[in-house]
């Protein structure tokens, strides 16, 4: 079998583990895509109800409080506290499998001051006790959004008072997490 045929067979089998570049999950629902679009211009935008004013997340088609269908994306404060924080040592997705191969992947649930609960990647390097991977419940954090390399906005949590005022500062944190570059497997196809 020629090299070309071998490669074609591999592609047909479509094994992500053989791909040269692996990226985070790209799939989103229509309101998930709206979240990305609304977050391009600001550090954090969340859905607000035009009737009762409730802020909500995850994005929905209607207001979870009053069921009003008229929602607007508005800039929101990313301040909140950690509900629970863990590191993942196992993943179902090739991108994270490769990242976890280098170091466990930290994630947390965070309760924002605007009373929504978000999942977020944790920028562990911004916390004092970097030695301790699991950041204690109640720790004050700030959450902002940034595009990952599958071109979706994802949320990133940093220690409160970490400077994230400029796009460059936020990008540097996302880049350090490894979210902005695909995970590369040098022997891949």
């Amino acid at each position, binding site marked *: 079998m020629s090299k070309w045929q071998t490669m074609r067979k591999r592609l047909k089998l479509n094994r992500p583990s053989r791909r040269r570049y692996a990226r985070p999950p790209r799939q989103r629902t229509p309101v998930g895509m709206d979240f990305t679009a609304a977050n391009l211009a600001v550090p954090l935008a969340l859905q607000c109800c035009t009737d009762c004013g409730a802020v909500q997340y995850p994005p929905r088609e209607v207001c979870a409080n009053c069921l009003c269908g008229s929602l607007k994306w508005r800039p929101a404060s990313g301040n909140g506290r950690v509900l*629970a924080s863990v590191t993942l040592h196992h993943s179902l997705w090739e991108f994270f499998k490769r990242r976890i191969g280098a170091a466990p992947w930290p994630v947390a649930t965070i309760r924002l001051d605007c009373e929504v609960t978000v999942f977020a990647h944790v920028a562990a390097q911004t916390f004092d006790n970097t030695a301790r991977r699991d950041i204690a419940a109640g720790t004050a954090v700030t959450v902002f959004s940034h595009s990952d390399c599958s071109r979706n906005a994802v949320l990133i949590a940093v220690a409160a008072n970490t400077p994230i005022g400029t796009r460059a500062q936020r990008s540097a944190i996302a880049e350090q997490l490894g979210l902005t570059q695909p995970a590369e497997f040098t022997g891949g196809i």
Partner: protein
Amino acid sequence: MKDYSGVVIAAPISFGYAKQSPRGANWFIGNTLREMLRSAGLTKDDVDGLAISSFSLGADSAITLTQHFQMSPRWIAQLPYGGAAGLIALRRAARAIQAGDAEVIACVGGDGAAHRSFEGIAANFSNFTIDASFPYGAGGPNTAFSLITQHYMERFGATREDFARIALDQRYNANHYPAALLNHKPLSLEQYLSARRIAGPLHMFDCVMPCAGGEGFLMLSEERARHLSIPCCRILSAGELHNAHREDDVQLRGGWTEYADALYDAAGIGPKDIDILQTYDDYPVISMLQMEDLGFCAKGEGPAFVRDTDMRFDSSGPQERKLPHNTSGGQLSVGQAGSAAGYLGIVESIRQLTGQAGPNQVSGAHRAMVSGFGMINYDRGLCSAAAILGSAET
């Protein structure tokens, strides 16, 4: 609430557990149904109601299965409620029989386990999952449960040794239940503690193994069952409540808290009168929540309760208090066959209460509490359901 008199449950079947299988859900559901009918001495055409739960039907549904199996039910339900699916099927079917809408209802949960199919189910589980939880590390259900477990440990001081109590006694039970996928593997505390890390405080033996398989039971009128003279048991009480306690920041209780008392009142008994407890054990912490919320101990006392309770089917443990728990080994040791896992506790309870369990038979069991929990949409499980089942003598 109206009682469940006049309705019985029979023909408990667990079918075809396998770690991986090229067969589809229809194969597992069809074969489970066949075994159910054979054990009850019925034919397809005797079944006039069909309740189906599955995650891997693909383009099929409960209604397309009627043609797949060439059946003509006059009552049908598709119940995609994960770990609560079996109990919800039981409640719906019981009411249909009482109302005369159907006489014999087959309730079946079944799923295949094609290569890498679990990834697809986890990635596309729901809109919230797609947009707001799966992109964060793609851990699947492990992520949300590791966060719930971490929070529970911080809040109530539970340790890994406490969770080991649940996993180890269940493995002992599975060692006596031939159909369990881990039947042949004993588990020691050392093995449990030194297992591979999966997510946060969760290690290998805290997580279920996704697999293929089917579980099913028949529900029929008492009269019909007597006519067939098949072993059966009764529903003493049952309840459900979904997305309860939605104001809690992190899940540490489920809807059971709101109806546990009503369940005991309707059955005329208390937690101490329960001979067997079957909880939905996708992770040990979830079993602990159910023990607390169903009144076996107070909130936060789950760790102390499992330390002091022998949960083996044969009461061979050193602890003084005895409560056979997940007597076939639960999903942690039998395997999680998708939606079938939501039927496992009921099917095992019917076997126990009718004396058909085999090597893992609990002696003198007359009342079983079965509990279900399911559907991690985002940060918590949404479904809760529970039932107290009684042997024919109760």
